[in-house]
């Protein structure tokens, strides 16, 4: 019967632990972004991802210096808070329109979100839309 060396297990666990710590460090230090709804922004500033529902009117042009402007409300309008967005960058996805759930990434300062990226959520396979009566 082969004998097992506890040293091997200790080394394996140590390697796993180092890897786990490294993963945590990588994630926290470099790549993570706070993700909030409009009502959760509070006094935060800097890089944010804001999850919300687009509130019209949508004005301006993403390619112009002034950018495209719209507001974001809490999903399902849970709280009556609006965040104003100035968006510059690539065209928003085709599904972008008032009432649609989106995630806008950008920098939040002085009460406005300067957006640089928009993800429009797919009209899901797993959400049901009301059939026409």
């Amino acid at each position, binding site marked *: 019967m082969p004998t097992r060396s506890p040293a091997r297990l200790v080394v394996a666990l140590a390697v796993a632990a180092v890897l786990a710590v490294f993963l945590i460090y990588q994630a926290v230090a470099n790549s993570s972004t706070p993700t909030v709804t409009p009502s959760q922004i509070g006094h935060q500033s800097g890089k944010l991802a804001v999850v919300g529902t687009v509130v019209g009117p949508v004005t301006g042009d993403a*390619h112009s210096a002034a950018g495209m402007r719209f507001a974001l409300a809490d999903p399902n309008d849970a709280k009556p808070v609006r965040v104003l967005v100035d968006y510059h960058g690539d065209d928003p996805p085709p599904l972008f329109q008032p009432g649609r759930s989106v995630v806008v990434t950008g920098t939040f300062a002085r009460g406005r979100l300067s957006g640089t990226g928009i993800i429009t959520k797919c009209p899901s*396979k797993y959400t049901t839309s009301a059939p026409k009566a």
Partner: protein
Amino acid sequence: MADLGRAALVVTLGLALYALVAGGYAAHTNRRRLADSARNALVCAFGSTLVAALVLLAALARHDFSFQYVAAHTNRTLSTGYALSALWAGQEGSLLLWLLILTGYGALAVFVNRTLLRDLVAWVVPVLGGVASFFAFVLVAVASPFKTQVPPVDGAGLTASLQNPYMVAHPPMLYLGYVGLAVPFAFAAGALLSGRTDERWIVATRRWTLAAWTFLGFGQILGAHWAYVEVGWGGYYAWDPVENAALMPWLAATAFLHSVMIQERKGMLKVWNVVLVALAFELSVFGTFLTRSDVVNSIHSFAKSPIGGWFLAFVVISSLFSLALILLRLPLLKARTKLESALSREATFLYNNLLLVALCLTVLWGVLFPVLTQLVKGETRTIGRPYYDFFLRAFGLPLLLLMGIGPLIAWRRTSVRALLRTLAWPIGVSVVCGAALVLAGAGSSRPGLIAYTFSAFVLATIVVEVVRGTRAVGSVFTLVARNRRRYGGYVVHAAVVLLAIGIAGSSAYGRSTEQRLLPGQTMRFDGYRLTYRGVTRVNTPQALETRAHLDVSGRWNGSIATGTNDYKFPPEPNKKVAIETDWLRGEDLYVIADIRNSGAVYFTVLVKPLVNLIWLAGIVFVLGSLVAMWPDAREQRRLVTRLAPARASA
């Protein structure tokens, strides 16, 4: 009709529960007739689930809007093909497909192995019955596809982006993969429950695992291609949690497919293999939970549905069951031999496994990170693409290298000198390729250059292996026929190399620009000259199709049109990109248009080198898997001989 569907599902639930309870009791008390009866119940559960699925398919084909499900996912303008594909377009229908595949797979697996592995199958039946009971319960009590209503005039229609042939094939492929992983899991659990932890369960489920793994892998390639041609952002994989949900079990299953070879040959890694097969199955259910629970933010905005909690409970209970079972049977899972050298094929397979599992857990960490930060810090933080890209390079590139070394290194032990001698040709080829690539300007991306050089190394090792083998037996066909598993594996390795080259080419060496043009204006980019000619609008019964037309000259000559379709049922816009493929270079010219009322159009032009190798990799991957799975009479005879002693002791 809806009553028939509901009744069929109730029958399925009853049969699955019987398979679970009676099967478990029969296996525990060694009652053969009761075990046969439980097995037959599992087979019949497939029949009743098939009836339920046919009822729903008939309602979809007839546009029977008295079914809430049919009204929510189809309308009268939808073609029959897409109407039938709505079976998996909604939550309840896709769960029904899950159950149909599960009972189908289960029935076939226990039927095929009923004689050769009778003692094992007796325990497999209750495990599969337990999984099927859960899905049948959810369909009967929580998310029934057979809810009825007063029929509306028309239905809501199918989301425009899902009306695409790739989307017809992509979800069922993934389901075939996810659900298929239940079979090796059930056999592993059966082996542990019965206390017969020899290699029989691995041999019996090898093809099942391969098939599930192939479906899952090919399903992901189809999904990536759908995103590329339909979503219109120029990419094919966004590291979205829902995409990752399919990647994670595939990575775990890849590790399992490699490590079982070590157990079969050396009797090692027994604990590791049962952990991997349980991990792959749990991750496949976790993926289903993820897509239906709204616990993480995803571009796939899945609703917060009541089934999320049920799935979480199932994942927790089945994970605890697996863990307890493995711990309980730990004394039976001791290795027959041990690793003799860090320079051996066994060790290389182990490194490969560690890297695959590390990549899998890294992705899982990224998916769960927002949930964990919410729990720990009360603040949701999400992890972006740089995190995933970093770890893909950190783990993926060494994996690529190991894919070349593994098949050529000797079993048990070897020396560095002997290894270098074996790898002399592949190393030479990769060094020459690397130098040529640097001279050709590929040095602009270090990860890209490394990926290309390692790919050349792996391809060279495959060629060396095939040439050596062919010399020995006289013909490449004889060579492959004599060891389909091994050479099928090499074809799959070639597919992974194509995938790596395609990903490296299109991401590390891709180029893009954006420009505003008025009719008659021209832009130049990367050897292409694009002249904007104007906009057309065509009103069809399905959509208002708006297109910006461009004349292209330079590296390719012709005309392209790109724009949007504003669908009417349901009213949704959808981007239509122009993709022109240069097959000789494997490169795409990819143009996205943002058409303004002023007549100006913002064009985003992307050049995607070698991106088509990714889709080609999908085809080669399936071919390689088919070769590895193909029935082999010689292997079957070896199997019968090998299982004979175990059967005698059963």
